[in-house]
């Protein structure tokens, strides 16, 4: 009804990886309930690779679909690879988002970064500001 692709509607009506991970290795939470979006992603990391990811989202259809898609895209990736899952990649995987909804996929990217940095700092590593440095 709002010009969402079938892919967005599919991820909205049948979200993948919805939920939380008890004692996750990394948890990212971004957004602000007052502006109507809040997204939380939990990751399980084994041997430097994300083996499981779960999300919870308070927000519009695009925000829910973006978080569902984002969790699908990062599972199986190293932290470094997962960091590179951009908002554009999430939006593309969803067959596009309406222009005023692109910020919802930005939220997904920020949330992945927050979860990765949470995992890094928990393990005594410095948080990435801009992403992995060369050689990391």
């Amino acid at each position: 009804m709002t010009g969402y692709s079938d892919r967005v509607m599919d991820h909205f009506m049948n979200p993948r990886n919805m939920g939380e991970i008890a004692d996750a290795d990394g948890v990212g939470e971004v957004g602000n309930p007052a502006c109507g979006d809040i997204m939380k992603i939990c990751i399980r990391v084994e041997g430097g690779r994300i083996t499981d990811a779960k999300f919870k989202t308070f927000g519009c259809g695009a925000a829910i679909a973006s978080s569902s898609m984002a969790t699908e895209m990062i599972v199986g990736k190293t932290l470094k690879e997962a960091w590179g899952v951009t908002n554009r990649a999430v939006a593309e995987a969803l067959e596009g988002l309406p222009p005023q909804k692109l910020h919802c996929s930005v939220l997904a990217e920020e949330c992945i970064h927050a979860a990765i940095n949470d995992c890094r700092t928990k393990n005594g590593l410095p948080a990435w500001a801009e992403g992995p440095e060369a050689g990391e």
Partner: protein
Amino acid sequence: MVTRQVYLDHAATTPTHPEVVDAMLPFFSEKFGNPSSLYSRAREARKAVEEARIKVATALGASPEEIYFTSGGTESDNWAIKGIAAAHRKKGNHIITSSIEHHAVIDPCRHLEKQGFSVTYLPVDEYGRVDPAAVAAAITPETILISVMTANNEIGTIQPIAEIGKIAREHDIFFHTDAVQAIGAIPIDVDALSVDLLSLSAHKFYGPKGIGALYIRKGTRAETLMHGGGQERRRRAGTENVPGIVGLGEAIEHAVTDLEGRTRRIAAMRDRLIAGILDTIPKSRLNGHPTQRLANNVNIAFRYVEGESILLMLDYFGIAASTGSACTSATLDPSHVLLACGLPAEHAHGSLRLTLGEENTEEDIDYVLEVLPGIIERLRSMSPLTPTDTR
């Protein structure tokens, strides 16, 4: 997949009544004449326009020469506010309105502020009511216009228009009301309400889109916005939208016939819907006034969920509704009406508006009550804000 279709967004627009369409049709084809022309085909059109004007006037307790046809509610609101402001600027530059007006009133007021007018946006109580005493207190020697809507489009709260009109009259200040949501919902009489200008729009009461009217009390000077011809007694130029005007006349006649019987039936469905939702869905609360509300309006805030996602799921189940959240627009601000009622932004985002109409049935209500609790529960299970005990 469910195939039931339930339309619950009558405050947004209504279907054009088949009898209204029938009345309009001849004016597209055999009676297509321009009312300003002199031959007989044109006289037919002129006569139809004047008959419609009488119907609108009758519905409002006004005289036909006080009714001016416009393109709809937005034009009527703009004309009333900018027209009074421009014509009476010498007398004063202050306007009083409320903080819950439609944007067709708020935006012209903001525009006038840029032209040097000062505007008071009165607060409302938690139910969305303007306090007449606050109107009186806001009046200054500079005040030339008071504009308060008859009933709010989002939360359905009915305003104390007669009291406000009386105050305006006592102070010799023009009083405009946006009655776009009120026609066909509550009885309107411009004299009883002491209204000087009143806006209405046909598509809100089973008439066509693109046609409305502004009532301007006899003797009220309001500057013309549309220049270019002698139509509407030289006050609103442009060839008349004859089919639309005929449709408006037909629709308003229908809207005020058996008003009480129709609204009683709709209000009963509304009350069952409200009670059913509040009973079955925890952490839900009614927005707007419990009794001073339009017969067709239900507006509920659900904690922990966001409005657009509720709409999307309802749409999946064939239910058309609307929300107080502005997530679908370019800004992310929640509804200014709900915020003015003191609702925290976070709750305002999770508000759902269901507005009933004549074609809704008890089965429609049953269906919504069957589907909605599951939708809210499902969205809450996805929300990081939901505390564990309400799951």
